[in-house]
């Protein structure tokens, strides 16, 4: 049975992860569960010079940890992620692959000197979770500004786009899930 597995990467808020289950289930029409037995410690991916965590290393580790999992895996954390050539990333995914990783670090309002806004931050996290998982289903960035697959490199850009796939991207997801199951 295909499913989406959410893997907590420390430190992370369990309640936050739980609240993602229902919306992700409806977005991908697959069962979504949280890895309860094993929380990943990302210390191995830490770059002391940059004071950030290498998302590419985390993806490699997750891939190794779940060799038999049938479906997609998304690691979620609150630490700041990077890929070597970029200053930061919200998340990273294997295009048409198995694993994605996502952080809420850059989605926080405090980062811009504003008061915390848990509700807004939760919506951002959800959009980015759908977005990164969308990549694992083979979707590339969509030119429609309302589509969740629209590229966003800033929190404002996440706020502008919608929570859902546009018709065309949705179609691609349906085709991908039907051939897999």
């Amino acid at each position: 049975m295909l499913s989406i597995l959410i893997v907590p990467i420390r430190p992370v808020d369990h309640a936050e992860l739980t609240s993602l289950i229902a919306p992700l289930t409806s977005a991908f029409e697959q069962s979504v569960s949280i890895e309860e037995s094993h929380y990943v410690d990302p210390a191995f991916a830490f770059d002391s010079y940059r004071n950030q965590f290498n998302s590419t290393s985390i993806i490699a580790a997750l891939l190794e940890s779940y060799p038999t999992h049938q479906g997609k895996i998304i690691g979620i954390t609150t630490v700041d992620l990077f890929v070597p050539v970029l200053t930061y990333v919200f998340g990273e995914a294997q295009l048409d692959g198995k694993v994605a990783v996502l952080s809420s670090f850059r989605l926080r309002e405090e980062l811009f000197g504003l008061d915390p806004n848990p509700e807004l931050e939760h919506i951002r996290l959800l959009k980015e979770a759908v977005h990164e998982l969308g990549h694992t289903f083979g979707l590339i960035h969509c030119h429609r500004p309302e589509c969740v697959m629209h590229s966003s490199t800033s929190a404002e850009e996440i706020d502008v786009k919608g929570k859902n796939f546009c018709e065309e991207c949705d179609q691609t997801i349906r085709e991908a899930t039907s051939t897999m199951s």
Partner: protein
Amino acid sequence: MTEKKSAPQSIMIVDDELIVRESLTKWFRQDGYRVESAEDANHALKLMNEGPWDLALLDIKMPGMSGLDLQKRLKEIDKNTSVIMITAYASVESAVQALKEGAFDYVTKPIDPEHLSHLVTNALKQRKLVEENVQLREQISDIAKANEIVGESQQVQKVIELAKTVSKTDTTVMLRGESGTGKELIARVIHANSSRRYFPIIAVNCGAMVESLLESDLFGHEKGSFTGAQFRRKGKFELSDGGTIFLDEIGAISQKMQVQLLRVLETKQFTRVGGNEVISSDFRVICATNRDLEAAIKEGSFREDLYYRLNVFTIVIPPLRERRPDIPLLAEYFCNKYAAAMHKAVTEISPNAMDIMVQYDWPGNVRELENVMERAMVLATPPAIQHTDLPFQLASKAHGLLADSIAAIERAHIEMILHRCGWNISRSADILDIDRVTLYNKISKYGLKRP
């Protein structure tokens, strides 16, 4: 970001670090671009065979050929590829060097994703605009070229072929032909097909101006150089810098102007009227005349040295009566043109009217035909132009003058030949096989008047 439907834009990444190549490749693929990467300049140059690349991201510091040198090579291969330099060291010097050599911008590692995303979007947008601009220019010159000459006859095709051949060079061209044969059009075709086409073509009618006006028109003048010269004004030679100057009715210029013109053509330098500053201008000369310059040289009214300077490549445009098959084509072309301009649903020319036009001698050539069609369009009732819409003299001349006496026939014949030669006495006398004095006598005897 990128349009899903159109062919993906392409990005080439050149960096000696594997992790940089991998992460940027992945990042851009998720954006829907076609991406390839190379670890050094050699591999990058090989990748050029798989191009064209819309954008190249080049690491400045690499073993072997540096990013700066690679940029030069890439631009030699495809000058349209946009280049963004990547550097681990924020070296202002090398970045400035890259920009001077045509890089779109530069980024320092690690790159801010938001910045990179906008930079790439802008670089690709700019490249698209440049490309579009080139295409539009081509289309415009195609349109300009296509509409200008109508005619399928061998003579016209030969003229077009000669014009296209000479357009690729900077050779001075002399266009010979009767009034109204379309000398200026041919000049424009030559210009439109030349490498000078994005610069102006400036037409000067040398026959239409008195000497002093023509002088200031061609060379420009300084403020106060003559009464009424309130401002400094650039001359036509100066305005045609980079382009083409078309000197129409070159046979009509005075002796003094001929000397000045010769000097300008030889040196491409001149001074404005009333000025001392020597001005250089890079222009190509196309001139036109309907006069018999060779006879003018014999008479002493046209300088031989100027003649040889101008008469490098001559294109003779045949009069309309020597290419009658083109008459229907031209008539239909002008019929459509004026029907559209006057919003009249006149779509055809009656066979009777066409017959008259084909038989007519058209001393005024294409210009006369155009005027006749314009006039006919005013009179015509849809859907067709009838022979009654044509000017009276056209109908009568086309059917031949039935005269009774020898004298009347001689008068009509001389008049026709004069017409055909644009009242060029020497040429008419040649054709009539009489000397010029006799011709003058006959003209005054029959009371013929220059039109």
